[in-house]
């Protein structure tokens, strides 16, 4: 192996520790320059296997570089740059450090050649991202952060269990396609992965934690966790039938909850669930076209979803409000934010000339080509729902609708620049999809811009808009929250605490009472008897035996007089006794 490869995760993970030592402009330049270098490293990386070690008789591959890992590394490093630009005004170095570790973790997973390395970086991601929630420093955020980390620990444990079982079965920890054996190892690893992909019913952590994170932290979170999960699913579980249907359910599930949602970032979080549904379904179908679709959709999703989160974050930053019921009429003072947000909205809704159109349609067309009409129809329906919420409902109630009287300024320039870069890429991918198609893992034979595809997509979207305006009154946001599967562990925790306080507490009191009134006096009585026995019987017996032994020893001492005649008498007596015993036995 003559080629060398510099692992970009090192740049971020080692680089994170320098951040607190830098300040002012130097720190800002540093925050931007590391992602830029990492991007160039990924662009220049040549395919191959690097960092092969033998550890406890197993082969460890720190980095496996191929087309699939490279395409994810490109978008992760681009996103790192955009996210850092967006968060440049943040003074909290801890947030920058955890964002760096988080990005490093994602890149580590992307290049991991074995499960050991993968798991290590997987956990780095879980813990570093949790800090982005904690850093909000409000009670609700801290609680959501704890739920987030607990759910991810549970997922990590399942993954680790699966890895160990997989190793026991196959004797290998190399990371690659897993045989569809339906074994416990298969399901454990898959569950660990789909928890991070936010597949219902294991998705509630996402809608719970992301809206509570800091404005800049949420931008990183929406980009990395679910998309690394898509990457590992593409790598390990292509063609797993159950994922097709889980993906379709996801796509519609997110859409349904988004209708009910009042918190702007929670609405967007539910649309992550919906959009990742397309990717998961694409993995499940497992054809070259749908796998390419999953990867390309992950690529464009990272950019447009970050753009949407940045837009909503800018509004939260400038108004301090996040509920649609409290917002409205912001178009007057935030037209640039609105425009950039709408570019993200058009991209996620798959408008022609925007990135979603050239990536999402690959999955849907792949489903049609794979003879799955129902899947294609349901995914198209979810597509209408996407435009309904992120393209119409959210911007309508945030920027138009009822005037809230708020007159916030545009956000700081660095935030606008970051959004501008993301918006530019959303349009660039949509207009010139060839460059994205070239970096996909499999050869692409797909032309998104056919006449019927464009007109039918526009038909779906514009008549969704008609439906929206006709039913506008029904869609007015309501000041509520929605019960989701986190109900089970949030209410479950309350039941647990009630159980601990009430039945267990009462039982403990009862036991204490019985102990005090009945058992303790009995034990004291027994102890007193024991003490009396000890004092009067045991001690006396011990003293008595000791006395006997002492007098015996005194006697024995006297026997050893040192005079020969005494010993002679003793010998004669002894011999006589022996003869006596001997004669008795022989006679008998």
């Amino acid at each position: 192996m003559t080629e060398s490869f510099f692992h970009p995760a090192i740049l971020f993970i080692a680089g994170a520790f320098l951040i607190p030592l830098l300040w002012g402009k130097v720190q800002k330049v540093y925050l931007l320059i590391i992602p830029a270098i990492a991007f160039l490293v990924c662009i220049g990386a040549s395919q191959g296997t690097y960092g092969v070690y033998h550890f406890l008789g197993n082969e460890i591959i720190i980095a496996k570089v191929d087309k699939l890992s490279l395409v994810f590394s490109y978008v992760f490093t681009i996103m790192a740059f955009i996210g850092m630009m967006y968060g440049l005004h943040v003074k909290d170095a801890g947030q920058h450090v955890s964002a760096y570790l988080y990005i490093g973790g994602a890149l580590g997973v992307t290049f991991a050649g074995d499960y050991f390395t993968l798991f290590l970086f997987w956990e780095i991601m879980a813990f570093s991202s949790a800090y982005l929630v904690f850093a909000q420093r409000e009670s609700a955020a801290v609680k959501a952060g704890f739920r987030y980390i607990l759910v991810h620990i549970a997922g990590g444990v399942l993954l680790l269990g699966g890895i160990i079982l997989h190793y026991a079965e196959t004797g290998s920890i190399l990371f690659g396609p897993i045989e569809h054996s339906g074994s416990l190892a298969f399901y454990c690893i898959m569950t660990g992965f789909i928890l991070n992909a936010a597949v219902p019913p294991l998705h509630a952590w996402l809608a719970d934690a992301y809206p509570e994170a800091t404005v800049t932290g949420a931008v990183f979170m929406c980009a990395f966790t679910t998309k690394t999960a898509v990457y590992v699913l593409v790598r390990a579980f292509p063609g797993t039938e159950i994922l097709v249907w889980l993906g379709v359910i996801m796509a519609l599930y997110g859409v349904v909850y988004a209708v009910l949602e009042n918190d702007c970032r929670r609405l967007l979080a539910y649309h992550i669930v919906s959009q990742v549904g397309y990717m998961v379904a694409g993995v499940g179908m497992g054809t070259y076209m749908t796998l390419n679709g999953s990867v390309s959709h992950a690529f464009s999703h990272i950019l447009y979803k970050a753009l949407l989160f940045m837009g909503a974050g800018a509004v939260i930053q400038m108004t301090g409000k996040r509920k649609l019921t409290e917002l409205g009429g912001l178009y007057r003072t935030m037209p640039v934010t609105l425009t950039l947000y709408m570019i993200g909205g058009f991209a996620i809704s798959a408008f022609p000339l925007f990135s979603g159109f050239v990536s999402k349609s690959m999955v849907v067309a792949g489903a049609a080509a794979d003879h799955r009409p129902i899947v294609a129809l349901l995914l198209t329906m979810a597509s209408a729902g996407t435009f309904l919420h992120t393209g119409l409902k959210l911007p309508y109630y945030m920027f138009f609708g009822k005037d809230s009287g708020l007159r916030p300024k545009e956000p700081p320039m660095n935030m606008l620049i970051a959004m501008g870069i993301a918006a530019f890429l959303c349009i660039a991918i949509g207009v010139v999809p060839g460059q994205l198609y070239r970096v996909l893992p499999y050869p692409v034979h797909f032309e998104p811009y056919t006449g019927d595809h464009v007109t039918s997509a526009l038909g779906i979207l514009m008549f969704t808009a008609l439906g929206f305006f006709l039913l506008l009154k029904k869609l007015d946001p309501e000041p509520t929250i929605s019960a989701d599967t986190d109900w089970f562990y949030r209410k479950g925790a309350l039941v647990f605490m009630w159980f601990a306080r009430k039945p267990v507490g009462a039982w403990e009191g009862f036991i204490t009472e019985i102990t005090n009134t009945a058992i303790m006096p009995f034990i004291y009585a027994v102890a007193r008897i024991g003490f009396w026995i000890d004092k009067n019987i045991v001690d006396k017996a011990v003293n008595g035996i000791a006395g006997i032994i002492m007098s015996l020893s005194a006697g024995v001492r006297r026997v050893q007089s040192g005079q020969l005649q005494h010993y002679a008498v003793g010998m004669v007596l002894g011999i006589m006794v022996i003869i006596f015993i001997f004669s008795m036995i022989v006679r008998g």
Partner: protein
Amino acid sequence: MLEKIINFIGDAKNAKTNRIIFYIILVVVFASDFFVDREHAHYIWDKIPGWGAFYGFISCVLIIVVSKFLGHQGKLMKKEDYYD
């Protein structure tokens, strides 16, 4: 320029003009679907002109009605202090 367009759209005075523009766009989109080549269509519905418009509208209404039904009748929507 952009600001002007946005202010025009947002201003309540222009609601009627906005609506007319919107309807014109709908007509153009619907009509254009009748003039495109459908050789690559996989399924029977893909061959029907105007299918996208019909399916988009039905999907939108269905999603709103079903979600709101689940939210209100299915008791998914809770008061904001539900977990406190």
